[in-house]
Each structure stands twice: as C-alpha cells, then as structure tokens.
C-alpha cells in the first residue's frame, strides 16, 4: 500500500509536473545531500517530522538555511512551550512510511499520513526550484514550489506556506497564529481498525481488555465529544451522550474474571493445591480483581448517573 519512489515519480509525470531527478548514494543529512546536488542552483530543503504531546504529527519542510525554532513553533501552534519534539523513528516508518533521513512534503501521500499536518516554508516560493527526497534517500528531485502545490492539491492537501522564522507574540490577545495547522481529527494509528464513531461505540467501549480497545476508545472519544458540543438544541433528543450499557459492562467483568481464572489454573497449580484449588483460585480472583472491578463499576455508575442528570436537565414538568 505504501507509495514507492517509482510510483511517486510516475504520478508526478502523470500530473505533468515538471521536475528534474538526480540519483546519488544514500544520504541521511542535508550536508551529505549538498555534496551531490548542492551546486545545481536550486535550494536544499530540510525536513522535520515532529510530534506533540497528544500524539499528533507534523511535517515541517523548510529551506536548509531557514532557522526553525521548535519552541517558537510550538507556541505558534498553540501547544505551549516545549509542546513539540522530534518524532520517534518508528513513527516515521509507521506513519510516513519512509526511512530515516527521507522526510519530505511528498511523505504525506500515504493514507497513514492523512492526519499529519504539513507546514511549508514560504521561502520555497521565492526559489526557482527546491530539492526534496522523493520517498527515498538515494535520489533528490528538484521542482518549483508551484509544481509542488499541484501535487499536493492532487492528493487533497491544501498547500499553505508559512513564515517559519517569524516569532509573533502569543498571549491573551494574540492567539497562536498557526493554530489552524494542528490536526483536528483523531490520530489514526495505522495498525488499528478505524471505526466510524457511531452512537453506540461512544458508550462503554471497554469491551476487550486489550490495547487496541484503549486506543480506539481514545480515537473515538474526541469525535464523539465534538458531536456533543456542536449540537445543543433545546428540545431534540440527544442520543450522542455515552450510554451506560449493562451488557458491555458485564462482558468486561466476565472477560477479566475468566482471563484470570484461566491463568490461575495450570498443571503446576493443580499439582500444588489439588482439592483446594477451587478455594485458592477463588481467593486469588477476589484479591486481584476487587479494585479493578470496583473501578469499572464506578465508571458504570458515573455514566448512568450522567445520563439521568442530563435527562433531568431537559425534563418537562407535568402540565397541571
């Protein structure tokens, strides 16, 4: 599924985008790249793959000599100071599907990078052409910013250029000027099933004690809330508030209890306790699960109370 260099080049040709390509040995840094294509008249780019504390990702593509201050950028995005850091190499591979040293605006072409935000240096526009890696470090292609735009538009991206060196004040009366670049959708991790947020799934989605449930829950919740916040009409029924589902709740309890039960009964434990195994296992289950299940029950109670409270605030008193 991941785009290859050849597929990208083919696509560019299809779109009749003018570019020149230069093969060279694999390079991992701008300096190394400069050795091969630095004297050809175009501008080199440096590309950063960043992430913020809420696991949202950004590709920042700039001229090699543009000064990019992560602290300033973080503030301009509304992430506070120190909200941005370099993303891990694994994220590079998982989300952008490119190896180290190969980040470029083209890297957002893959589905997995759908929610990665792209910031482009306005300095590109002043250059005749700029060099980028086309999803592989053993080649650089040069093209005009205008042509880059054509490509980005073709993949549904809105090319917007930013003065990356600017340092406008961010404060009470000056909202972060780049706040629009922060991805608003839930981040989709490529190895998880992407569920469309339905009414039921925003409820007790703690169905399986597994990591994917937790992350899917995280992914689903923000959209669920966005729904809730936007619709606040007075007399329509609001089905989108999370429901306390007794069935899901019980399934979760049973799943945990049976998982623990199975782990407690083994050849060794049978040998060790023989006739007493039942009592022993029962005790262990109580000991291990007590707090966990109480927590689950509290969540269930709070959810049910909230449903009732919500209904109560929209209750129409009996007409006398």
């Amino acid at each position, binding site marked *: 599924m991941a785009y290859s260099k050849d597929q990208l080049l083919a696509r560019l040709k299809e779109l009749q985008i003018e570019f020149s390509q230069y093969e060279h040995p694999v390079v991992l840094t701008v300096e190394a790249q400069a050795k091969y294509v630095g004297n050809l008249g175009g501008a080199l780019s440096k590309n950063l793959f960043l992430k913020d*504390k*809420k*696991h949202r990702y950004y590709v920042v593509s700039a001229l090699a000599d543009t000064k990019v201050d992560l602290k300033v950028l973080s503030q301009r995005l509304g992430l*506070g*100071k*120190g909200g941005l*850091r370099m993303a*891990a190499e*694994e994220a590079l591979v998982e989300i952008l599907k490119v190896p180290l040293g190969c980040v470029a605006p083209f890297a957002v072409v893959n589905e997995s990078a759908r929610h990665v935000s792209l910031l482009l240096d306005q300095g590109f526009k002043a250059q005749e052409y700029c060099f980028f890696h086309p999803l592989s470090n053993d080649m650089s292609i040069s093209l005009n910013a205008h042509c880059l735009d054509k490509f980005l538009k073709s993949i549904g991206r809105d090319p917007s250029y930013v003065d990356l060196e600017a340092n406008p004040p961010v*404060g*009470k009366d000056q909202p972060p000027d780049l706040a629009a670049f922060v991805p608003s959708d839930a981040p989709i991790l490529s190895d998880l099933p992407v569920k469309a947020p339905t009414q039921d799934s*925003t409820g*007790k*989605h*703690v169905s399986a004690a597994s*990591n994917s*449930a*937790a992350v899917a*829950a*995280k992914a*689903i*919740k923000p959209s*669920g*809330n966005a729904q*809730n*916040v936007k619709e606040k009409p007075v007399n329509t029924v609001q089905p989108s*508030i*999370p429901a306390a589902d007794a069935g899901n709740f019980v399934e979760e309890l049973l799943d945990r209890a049976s998982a623990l039960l199975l782990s407690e009964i083994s050849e060794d434990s049978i040998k060790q306790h023989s006739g007493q195994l039942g009592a022993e296992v029962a005790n262990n289950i109580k000991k291990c699960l007590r707090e966990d299940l*109480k*927590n689950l029950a*509290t*969540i269930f*109670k*709070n*959810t049910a*109370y*909230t449903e009732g*409270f*919500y209904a109560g605030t929209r209750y129409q008193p009996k007409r006398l």
Partner: protein
Amino acid sequence: MEKVEDQNPQQEEDQVVNPWEVSAKDGGKIDYDKLIDKFGCQRLDQSFVDRVQRLTSRPPHVFLRRGVFFAHRDFNDILDAYERGQKFYLYTGRGPSSEALHLGHLIPFMFTKYLQDAFKVPLVIQLTDDEKCMWKNLSVEESQRLARENAKDIIACGFDISKTFIFSDFDYVGGAFYKNMVKVAKCVTYNKVVGIFGFTGEDHIGKVSFPPVQAVPSFPSSFPHLFSGKDDLRCLIPCAIDQDPYFRMTRDVAPRIGYHKPALIESLFFPALQGETGKMSASDPNSAIYVTDSAKDIKYKVNKHAFTGGQETIEKHRQYGANLEVDIPIKYLNFFLEDDAELEHIKKAYGAGRMLTGEVKKRLIEVLTEIVERHRRARAAVSDEMVDAFMAVRPLPNMFD
C-alpha cells in the same frame, strides 16, 4: 499555639517550599524532617496507619503503608470523631495550569479516592482556574478550558459522582462561598499574607487577595447546597506538603470565625525522573511520566532518563550493590508497586547487587504502563456531559452512604 511560619525569602541557603516553588538546599534532597519542624505539622506514624485499617476494615492504601503521605495536622481528631460516628468531608484541588498531567499530579487524587471509598465520605474538588489565570498569565477562557480538561483526568481517577462536587472558581465563587472569603480576608492582615506567601510591592492585588479562595472550601457553610445545617462538619484536606501555607493561614483564622480548623494529611513530592532535587515540572517532558504517554514513551523515559543508583559496571554492581537512597526506579516502585513483599525482595536483591538496574527498570515500566493504561481507559469514558454533571450545583443525598 500553633507555629505560624513566616517565610523569609532572603534565606537562600535553606530549602524553599511554597505553593509556587519547591527546591532543595544546594540542589540536594528535600529534608522532610526539617520541613515538618519548620511548618509545625506532625509525622504520620505507624499507629495512624493501623488505626485507619481498623476503622475502615480494609487494607490501608499503599501511600499510607509506604509513608508517601507522611505528615498531618489534627488527623487524630478526625479519626476520634469518626469513631464516635461523626463523619467528615474531603477537600482537595488542582491548579489547572497545563493540559499535560503527570503521575505526580495524580497522587493526591489517587489517595483521596481511597479515602472517599474507605471512609464513605463526600468530597469537594476545587479547580483554581483564577489562580492560574493570575499567576501564569493565562486568559480567562484558557484557564477555564484547562480546568475542564483537567477535570476529566481527575474524574478518571475514579471518584463517585454521587458523592463528589467539582467546581471551578470562576464558576462558583459568589454567594455563601464569597461571604466566607470576606470573613477570612478580614482576619488576615496584608503583612501576614506577605509573610506567609512572600508577596512584594510589585505583585498585583489579584495575587494578594487570592488566598481566601483556597481557604474557604474548608468550611462546610461554603457549600449550602451540600452541607446546609451541618456547620459542625469537619474537613480533611489531602494535599502535597507545599500547600501547607494556605492551610496554616486557614487554621489560624477558623476559630476566630467560629469554624472547625480543617485537618490536613500531607504527601511527599513525587521525584522527577532525573533525580530527587525537586518536584516534577509540567514544562519538562522528560522529567515526568505523563498520563498521555504511550507504552513506548514510558519505556523510553524510564530507560533513558531515570536516574539510578546502580554502579557503572556490572562487576562493580554485583560487588557493591545499588545505592537505594538515590535510585529513582526504586523510589517510583515505592509509590506504585502494590505488593509489599515483592518490593522488599527487589530492594534487597538490588541493594545487594544480585538484581541489575535493567531488571528493576523493566518492572517499573510494567507497573507504570498498567497505571497509565488504566487511567487512559477511564479517561476515555469521561464525556463532557459527565464533567457537567460532576460540576453541577446539585444536592448529593447519598454522600455519606
């Protein structure tokens, strides 16, 4: 007469502990004995822990067993009254200065939840959005937004909605609450508040008049929708020890306006990953484990940034063992590893050099990951409507059940 400490900001050799700054002497460790002495509170000894176990008929919380909550004021009075059938209510809070909560922030809330469950008492949680607006120069809207976001993480700690009232200052100050604020304010001179909090002539008047806001939730009459007619109800405040100045002031004022002094139960600071020289900072991402950290982040942070007491080479380590005094993974396990026996075993083996730093870190990563995972799942179940419900000014008819 209780010692009411006057803070002298000029003494730089001493450690500094107040609501806005925590730093040890000469970049060393915080001396808690000195702190208890200076502040004038009491040590929480084992007899208290045993008594709590007896009164609540359940094992005491890991933070009590390990001395994380280590100091108190008048906790014995609370327990005496409880034994006589007189309940109390809990009061704790958070200054919502950032969206990024770390494990250190959760500690008072985890403990408070235990207290709520064990003693079956109601709880009020104050979100001091006004304080952060003033001290951190946030906009009013931003601090209110952060308050709501933080409320979600707080709710995720597992509080019972039928016994918990969460409020933000911007929303709630007024009415009976404000009347108490004025009563308190009348009893504290400008000089006194400068002495306690170190305000200067350059500080704006918002800061100077803030302390009563944090004081009055200690008085039941501040919450007429909850405690009307129960003016005698006592209050217990679980907090980190740096909040002590607010409540020293409150305890000084309380009898003068006819209220019980609130009792306090205070915790140590959760050390930063890089070592025990202060408390975790929300602005340095590698000093702390955040509730939004992924399993990978936790593994990375513990492996790369946790300060250890292990020796430089394996041979030296096997010979001399680890320095448990400064080892951060051991300290963190002290906070979060439930099993007393396992912790003892690890300490013995690591201290003797039989266990390596890597193994201790691995266990810590497991423990922390489980906590953060559990928190995240609970957080995912918190909707905006749930926050609204927790924050609604409503009666709590079953709050003592």
